[in-house]
């Protein structure tokens, strides 16, 4: 190399690294070598000697390239063992406190409002924590369970809001309609139910959208969108009949049609509304989040 001709450090680093590295890394390493070279030159060292001093910084370029590549690919697995600092210190602590308060309120507070607010806040924080740790979650959790729970939480929250606004008596209409579905044919229960069905549409859309965003398959998007209805099916179609059987609930057992109607009202019909909302997000390929 002719004397006084400045080497192209960026090109040199790029060539030596052999494996593709981020341009930022190449520029930074090149800048470091250049400073060493310039320092040596400023001390009166010859060009070839300054070059040698700079290149002495790396014995094995291949090993360096591999180490840098490993560090870069560790981005996700790094987050593996160590939970996000804010999740660990803020969110999990808040969830623990709210969970404790929620449990305490179950025993000491007869009013249904405050415990519900606490539980919703707890669930919201839990979902927030899951979202901030999303890189550590596997595909099934990211594309199915998490969107499903978001959809379920939204549906529950909207039912709670509806009960609170319409009747100022949380859980009354849910209980009332469940026990006496014939109330649906007239009056406030009917409007309560219709409104609730309408709000299922955005809930289904939300679940399917999040699933698609996180790389969910079409089946995952359908399940995530219809998650609130599936949960209600589990409660009305399985949990209530099984508990009625074991508790020898004569009324429930002698009115199987009531149980079937419950499944229809709280699971089947809402499932249609949820899937209507999910429909626009069932088409097209997955959109990976940035």
């Amino acid at each position, binding site marked *: 190399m002719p004397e006084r001709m400045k080497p192209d450090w960026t090109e040199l680093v790029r060539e030596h690294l052999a494996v593709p590295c981020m341009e930022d890394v190449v520029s930074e390493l090149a*800048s*470091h070598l250049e*400073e060493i070279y310039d320092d040596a030159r400023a001390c009166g060292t010859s060009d070839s000697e300054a070059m040698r001093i700079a290149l*002495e*910084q790396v014995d094995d370029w291949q*090993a360096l390239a591999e180490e840098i590549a490993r560090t870069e690919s560790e981005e996700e697995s*790094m987050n593996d063992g160590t939970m996000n*600092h804010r999740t660990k210190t803020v969110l999990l602590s808040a969830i623990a406190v709210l969970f404790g308060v929620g449990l305490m309120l179950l025993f000491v507070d007869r009013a249904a409002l405050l415990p519900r607010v606490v539980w919703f806040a707890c669930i919201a924080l839990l979902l927030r924590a899951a979202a901030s740790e999303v890189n550590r979650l596997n595909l099934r959790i990211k594309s199915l369970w998490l969107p499903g729970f978001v959809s379920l939480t939204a549906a529950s929250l909207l039912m709670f809001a509806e009960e609170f606004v319409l009747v100022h008596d949380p859980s009354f209409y849910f209980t009332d309609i469940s026990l006496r579905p014939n109330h649906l044919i007239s009056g406030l229960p009917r409007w309560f139910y219709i409104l609730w069905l309408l709000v299922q549409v955005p809930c289904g859309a939300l679940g399917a959208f999040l699933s698609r965003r996180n790389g969910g398959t079409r089946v995952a998007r359908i399940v995530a969108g219809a998650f609130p209805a599936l949960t209600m099916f589990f409660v009305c179609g399985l949990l209530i009949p099984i508990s009625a059987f074991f508790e020898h609930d004569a009324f429930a057992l002698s009115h199987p049609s009531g149980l079937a109607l419950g499944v229809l009202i709280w699971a089947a019909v809402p499932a249609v509304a949820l899937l209507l909302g999910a429909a626009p997000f069932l088409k097209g390929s997955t959109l990976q989040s940035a």
Partner: protein
Amino acid sequence: MTKRISSKIARGSGELAILSLLAEQPLYGFEIARQIGERTGGALQFTLASLYPLLYEMEKRGWVEGHWQANQAGRDRRYYRLTTAGRKQLAPLRQEWRSFFQALDSLAGVSHA
């Protein structure tokens, strides 16, 4: 003249050395390596090959944060500064090394004369 410490030991202590320096002020890679060399009398020396993988790893852990800054010479430099998480690592790391030296001292008598 201080004897240069072997690269394995130097690398193990690298996190503490870098965090300690950055706790004082933001620095760029070349300056970090230079200051470590100078302030340890040449005993600890970081080459490009040993410094940057460590810096990138610390950055991924969220202990340090790098940002490009142009300087008057026209050469862009990537300055690293300590994050809150990095600052919190410093005290436990110092304590860990203190315990390590005490343990080594009681075993092999390596404390200062």
